[in-house]
């Protein structure tokens, strides 16, 4: 489990962000006191730093600069200012990425996970999702079950991965569509149905039946 430090002075955002990231199984350190913050960050040995720009005492730019002197921990700057010059400033001070408020949390999560992957904190293993003996490799869209191995299309893989990640929850069609759109797959309603049907067919061919259940009027679920 990767550890993320959240430096954010707004209490509600800090708490909700902590909850959100915990849900996606990250370990969190979110200090409420910003004295000696640089020493705190260096001490924590975390894998990633989410750093707000507007802070009491020292601003995020200063902290970023100081941390960079001693550590190459991946840093994502978060700010409500959104001009190019703010972004440029962050990059010049050694931040790895820049997200402006109010961000879409899926986008923030995607940036966190891609940055962690790039920095090598996430082991390659985490590219594989497992569910009832099924192994879904997200890197090459191959699915293993028993001795069988099949290829999925990118769309199909995304859908299946999202349902597995949210196992036990009913996922509405619109939530699934939104997830796909946020991953750059601008599919239509009818295409989603076709994709789900294809996944079921492919799964049946290798002997997996009724993995994805349809809840009428509500959506899909993997139990």
């Amino acid at each position, binding site marked *: 489990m990767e550890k993320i430090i959240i430096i954010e002075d*707004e209490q*509600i*955002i800090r708490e*909700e*962000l902590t*909850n*959100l990231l915990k*849900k996606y199984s990250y370990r969190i350190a979110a200090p409420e006191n910003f004295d000696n913050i640089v020493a705190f960050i260096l001490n924590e040995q975390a894998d990633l730093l989410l750093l707000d720009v507007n802070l009491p005492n020292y601003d995020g730019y200063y902290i970023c600069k100081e941390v960079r002197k001693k550590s190459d921990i991946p840093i994502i700057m978060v700010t*409500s*200012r*959104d*001009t*190019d*010059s703010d972004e*440029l400033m962050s990059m010049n001070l050694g931040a790895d990425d820049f997200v402006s*408020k*109010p*961000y*879409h*949390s899926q*986008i923030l999560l995607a940036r966190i996970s891609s940055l962690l992957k790039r920095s090598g904190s996430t082991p390659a293993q985490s590219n594989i999702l497992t569910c009832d003996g099924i192994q879904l490799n997200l890197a090459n869209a191959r699915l293993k079950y028993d001795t069988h191995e099949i290829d999925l299309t990118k769309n199909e893989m995304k859908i299946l991965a999202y349902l597995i990640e949210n196992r036990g929850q009913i996922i509405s069609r*619109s*939530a699934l*569509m*939104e997830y796909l*759109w*946020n991953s*750059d797959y*601008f599919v*239509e*309603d009818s295409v989603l149905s076709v994709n789900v049907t294809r996944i079921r067919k492919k799964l049946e061919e290798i002997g997996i039946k009724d993995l994805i259940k349809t809840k009428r009027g509500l959506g899909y679920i993997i139990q």
Partner: protein
Amino acid sequence: MTIKNYLNDKVVFLGANSIGFLILAGILFYSAFNTTLILYTFLLWFLPLTSFMILDYLKQRKYFKSINTLMDKLDKKYLLPEVITDTHFPIGDEVNDILKVVSRDMHEHINFYKDNKEDYREYIETWVHEIKTPIASSKLIIENNPNETTHKIETQLEKIEDFVEQVLYYSRSNNVEKDYIIRSLNLKHVITDVVKRNAKDFINEKIKLELDAIDTIVYSDAKWLEFIINQLIINAIKYRTPTDAKIHISTQTHENSVTLTICDNGIGIDEKDLSRVFDKGFTGSNGRKLKKSTGIGLYLCKKLCDRLNLQLSINSKPGLGTSVTITFPMLMDHY
């Protein structure tokens, strides 16, 4: 200053002198003085008087001529008192002094409003940044409590975000130069970001999206461009047809330019409204029908495009749809 004007001004002075002379001439005549003497008197009286007037006229003419030449050369006429040269006669000096006082006072007056406006702009910027924090926390709360109700609230929250952004760009639109960075950017990234921002509307309203050859490099500012394209897509969504709505986004590369076209099959714009859609506050018949137009979106787009040296044009047929085109010049020395 013409001779006629000058003489008109001096009519009382000349009249008084003439009357004075006529009375004197009458007295001399009746006292049986020689007519030659009367003529000499006339010359003695009027020769210095007219030469004084001619000199005076020339001086005044020179003064006003210099002012007029300055005025013609000046781009900003109100700067005249700053460049005006010293004269060597009292009326000119006095007028110059008055002009200087008036202009100084006017500058103070204008600065007062400039400061006011700048204060207000700064306040709006701060306000926008402040409001983003509660919006961000609300979105996180929603994310942590997913259900149908919070999903609906999120859709509304995204609308609030768009309006807040519009306020920010409106207040910035007068000094775009302050924070734009022109650099090479791929239209594909800007367009997909905007599409994602509006994903909920596309999905819920079942609007078909077609992207065609959008993988194109242009030179512009990403943030401003994203705002402009977002406004155009919001419009295309807002004025869609109730069934089978479709939005087609494409780019074309020409010899000296790249064009980006956003085409919809929506309700379209009346021909008589089309020429005025970029006017501030203009809502047209669509605005009256739908009652949710502010007349700000397209006005801002046009204004920002002008500032960014982009060309924005619109075509529409009522009932068939609207197509908006942004033209990016591709000559690098343009900037």
